[in-house]
C-alpha cells in the first residue's frame, strides 16, 4: 500500500492534529446493490433503448484497441448501429476489454468497471481474454476474464477483425433485448467470489472494495 493511503495523523490549517484513514475517509466502502429490473413492459422498452445506444468506454486496455479505431471510422462506422465512444466511465455503458489484461491494468479495469452505472456490459475482445491466448503462460497477464468481471460477450480471434467486432456487438444487442444483460447484478450477487479472485491476483490492494 502506498504511503498516501496509510492511516496517519495530519495537521490541519488551524494547527490541530487530525487522524485520517484515506481509504475510509475519501471513499465509500459500501457493497454494490442488486437493482432488480422494473416492470416487464417498461423494462422491455428500456432494454431496446439500451441496446441501441451502446456507449463504449474509451479505454484501450490491450492491443485490441487498434481495431477499435477502424471500427469507429469510415470503413466500418459503428456509429450507424448506435455504438458511440465515451471518454468517462460514469457515462459509458459498455466496457470493451480490448485484449490481454496485465495485472496492473486489471486493477484499473476493476476500478473503472465499478464506476460505471448499472446496467453495464462487458465485451471480451480477443482470444487472450478467453484463455490467455498467445500469452497463456505469461506471468503478468490474466487468463480468464470471467473470473474477474461478468462478461456478456466474448469475441474470439487474434486480432478479431472489425466485422467480428460488429457481429459481437449485434450479439450483445440481442442479449440486452432479451433481458439477459444483467452482468452488473451478477457482479453484485457474487461480489465476494469476484473480489476473492481479484485480490488473489492484485497483490497490492490499496483501494476500497468497491469503487463507487
Amino acid at each position, binding site marked *: 500500500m502506498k504511503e498516501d493511503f496509510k492511516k496517519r495523523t495530519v495537521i490541519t490549517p488551524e494547527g490541530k492534529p487530525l487522524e485520517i484513514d484515506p481509504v475510509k475517509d475519501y471513499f465509500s466502502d459500501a457493497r454494490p446493490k442488486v437493482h432488480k429490473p422494473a416492470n416487464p413492459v417498461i423494462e422491455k422498452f428500456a432494454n431496446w433503448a439500451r441496446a441501441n445506444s451502446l456507449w463504449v468506454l474509451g479505454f484501450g486496455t490491450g492491443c485490441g484497441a487498434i481495431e477499435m479505431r477502424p471500427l469507429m471510422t469510415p470503413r466500418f462506422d459503428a456509429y450507424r448501429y448506435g455504438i458511440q465512444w465515451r471518454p468517462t466511465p460514469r457515462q459509458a455503458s459498455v466496457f470493451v476489454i480490448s485484449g490481454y489484461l496485465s*495485472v*496492473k491494468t486489471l*486493477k484499473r479495469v476493476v476500478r473503472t468497471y465499478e464506476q460505471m452505472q448499472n446496467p453495464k456490459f462487458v465485451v471480451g475482445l480477443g482470444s487472450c481474454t*478467453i*484463455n*490467455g491466448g498467445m500469452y*497463456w*503462460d*505469461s*506471468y*503478468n*497477464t*490474466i*487468463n*480468464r476474464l470471467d*473470473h474477474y468481471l461478468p462478461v456478456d460477450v466474448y469475441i474470439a480471434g487474434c486480432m478479431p477483425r472489425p466485422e467480428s467486432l460488429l457481429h459481437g456487438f449485434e450479439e450483445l444487442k440481442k442479449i440486452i433485448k432479451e433481458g439477459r444483460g444483467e452482468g452488473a447484478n451478477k457482479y453484485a450477487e457474487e461480489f465476494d467470489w469476484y473480489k476473492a*479472485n481479484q485480490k*488473489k*491476483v*492484485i*497483490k*497490492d490492494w490499496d483501494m476500497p472494495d468497491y469503487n463507487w
Partner: protein
Amino acid sequence: MKSLLNNIKSRFSIKDVTEQRSNLVFIDVARESAVPLITYLRDYEGMTHLVLLTAADWIEENEFQLTYLLNNPEQKFDIGVRVRISREKATMETAHHLWEQVATYQRELKEMFGIDFPGSPGVDKPFILEGWDDLPPYRRDFDTKKYSEDTYFPRPGRESNDPAEYMKKKMYPNEK
C-alpha cells in the same frame, strides 16, 4: 575500428574481443573497468549514442551478463561492452550520469533481474510490475508457466492443441 580497439587495449584490460559483423564488435571487460570504458568511448571515441542496456542470465555459470551497446553515429559502427557480474551479489556501478535514459534501463533491470545500481535515481521504484512478490521474472529460475497456472485460473481444454505437435504432423510427417 582497428585503431579504436588498439586504443582501448592500451588503456583498459580487455578480456576478449568478438567480431560479430564488420560493424559490430563485442568486448568483454571486467566489472570495474566497464563504466570507465564506456565513458571513454563516449567522450573520446565518438560512441555518443547508447542503443540499449540489457542483461542476460547465465545461470549455469552463476553470472549475469550486462551489455552496453554503444553506437558511433559518425563512423557507423557499434560496440557492445559485455560485463559479467555475480548472480548472488548482483550490483553494478550506475551509468545514469552518461545518458538520460540509462536511469530507466537500470530501473527495469533492477525490477526484472534484481540487479542493483546504487545511486541511480529512482532505481527502487517499481517500473513495470506492481506489487510483485516473487523472484524477479526475467531470471532463469523463475518459471513463468508454473506461476501463471498457479495464479491465473487456466481454462481447461487448451492442451488439446499443442502447436508443436500440429506442426510436426503437418510439416514433418515422416519424422519419428
